[in-house]
């Protein structure tokens, strides 16, 4: 029998004299926690089902597209088109993820635990927003990387072919970033208004769903300027408009795209203002919530 040498001591309460980190690391901790929340890490198995289902779908689509291209040499969808094609899936993802990030905290009353800590009031919503935007961007950008790898390894033009693919990929990733920023900002703002996750999810889908018919009506009015500006009425077509203007061929081969006339820069400005407006409202919302 071995001699027992282990003794358990109750060392009592230990004071902490070590370092306390500043604003940057605290923001990073909140951001990473948000990103983990979106994908269901550190939470129940049930919370992982939907996000990983969506991840699976986008990866499979990208893999199929890459496979088709390598086999028959035909480009089914371009990098930039991938974001457009997946837009509804991403809306649903945002509609589930945004309430997980903020509505849940509003409902459970955990916010006083955050705001009674040395945390700037704006850092909480900004970290959550950044986490959501990152998640959406990864969902749109990750599959593009799969498509790129598929194309890069099967290209017949050598390094030059890879370089050309890369030049196509980068605008696609930027465009995905625009989608992520617009969807994330709108989604998080709506979710921050209510503690009920179902309401928040419904509200987010409704905003995208309800604004689409408005575009349809404006687009058939008998005035060309209104027709060309019609696509500003819905966030989805607004982003499409920016893509038409900024990416052109990469998004719509053969000069297609939305008939926005010469209003391209206006679409870009509108998208920036939309995101900025959502962020301002979000910060105002949390200034109010924090004192409760």
């Amino acid at each position, binding site marked *: 029998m071995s001699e027992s040498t282990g003794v358990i001591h109750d060392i*009592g*309460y*230990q*004071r*902490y004299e*070590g*370092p*306390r*980190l*500043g604003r940057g*690391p*605290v923001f990073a*901790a*909140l951001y990473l*926690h948000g990103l983990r929340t979106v994908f269901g890490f*550190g*939470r*129940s198995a049930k*919370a992982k089902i939907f996000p990983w289902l969506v991840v699976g779908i986008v990866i499979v689509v990208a893999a199929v597209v890459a496979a088709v291209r390598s086999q028959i040499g035909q480009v089914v969808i371009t990098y930039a088109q991938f974001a457009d094609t997946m837009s509804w899936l991403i809306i649903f993802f945002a509609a589930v993820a945004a309430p997980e990030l903020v509505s*849940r*905290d509003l409902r*459970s*009353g*955990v916010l*006083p*635990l*955050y*705001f*009674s*800590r*040395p*945390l*700037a009031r704006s850092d909480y919503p900004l970290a959550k927003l950044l986490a959501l935007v990152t998640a959406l961007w990864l969902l749109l950008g990750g599959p593009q990387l799969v498509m790129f790898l598929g194309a890069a390894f099967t290209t017949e033009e050598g390094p030059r072919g890879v370089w050309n693919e890369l030049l196509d990929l980068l605008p696609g990733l930027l465009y995905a970033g625009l989608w992520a920023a617009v969807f994330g900002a709108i989604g998080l703002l709506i979710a921050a208004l209510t503690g009920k996750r179902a309401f928040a999810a419904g509200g987010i889908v409704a905003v995208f769903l309800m604004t689409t018919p408005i575009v349809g009506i404006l687009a058939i009015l008998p005035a060309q300027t209104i027709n060309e500006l019609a696509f500003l009425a819905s966030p989805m077509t607004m982003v499409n408009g920016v893509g038409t203007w900024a990416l052109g061929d990469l998004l719509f081969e053969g000069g297609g795209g939305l008939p926005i006339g010469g209003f391209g820069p206006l679409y870009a400005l509108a998208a920036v203002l939309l995101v900025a407006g959502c962020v301002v409202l979000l910060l105002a919302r949390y200034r109010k919530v*924090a*004192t409760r």
Partner: protein
Amino acid sequence: MALIATESLTKTYRGGVTALADLTVVVEPGVVGLVGANGAGKSTLIKILLGLLPPTNGQVRVLGLDPTTQPDQVRARVGYMPEHEALPPDLSAAELVTHLGRVSGLPRTVARERASEALRHVGLYEERYRPVGGYSTGMKQRVKLAQALVHDPDLLLLDEPTNGLDPAGRDAMLALIHRIGTEFGISVLVCSHLLGEVERICDTLVAIDGGRLLRADRIDAMTSATDVLAVEVSEGTEELAAHLAALRLPVRRDGRLLLVELADDDTYDQILGAVAELDLPLHRLDQRRHRVAELFATREPSHV
């Protein structure tokens, strides 16, 4: 250095509701009870101490810092346990407390270690890996206390920590708070609407009503020289009273009880002797403090 010092602190909400009116109080480190009825201004005071609400008027200092201008420094050294439900149901206690430790600025590994330590100190062991949603009220209150402790604060602000607990849970929570105040070296401000509860564990009591200070004093100053012995006999209460009066002990009747002022240890012997002499069935003999509540009836503000 005073733990908390306020001077003419006033808070008027928009709409003209006055939550705090000209509150001036200074309290020293230790376990401090803040008592008052619901709506007396306790929660408002806590929010001002945390720098979450700006006071309408007056000065406030917490640990020598001004929460209106240095809220982050104050919050780094203060732990707060809110009154209401505050835990997301799908996270485990370990995960939540670790995360909140990191938000308080602890490095990752330190946050994890201190989170398990804090949960151990409040009496949560293996169950800390289960989602909080399945916890009992008592366990949830403990998690709320642990998250306030995780970053090793110098002051804990506890808002109605015994809310929703059964009598045994209340006693356990009060014992825990007392241990934190005495063994951990952390000052504690306990809010409660139940005076009887906090007076058991506090060094200092601050009573407010309608946003005004009723009284603030050390508890021993409030209860000194007021100890009495309560004697209960099954029969012959009258005889015993007469007998004790004959021994020149000051005796009062209180229902079935006889209350005798406790002069020194001899008083015990004299009472026991009297009971034995009369051959009465003694039911109980215990020392009783004057309820602090009686002391608030005088309503004279003073300062500690």
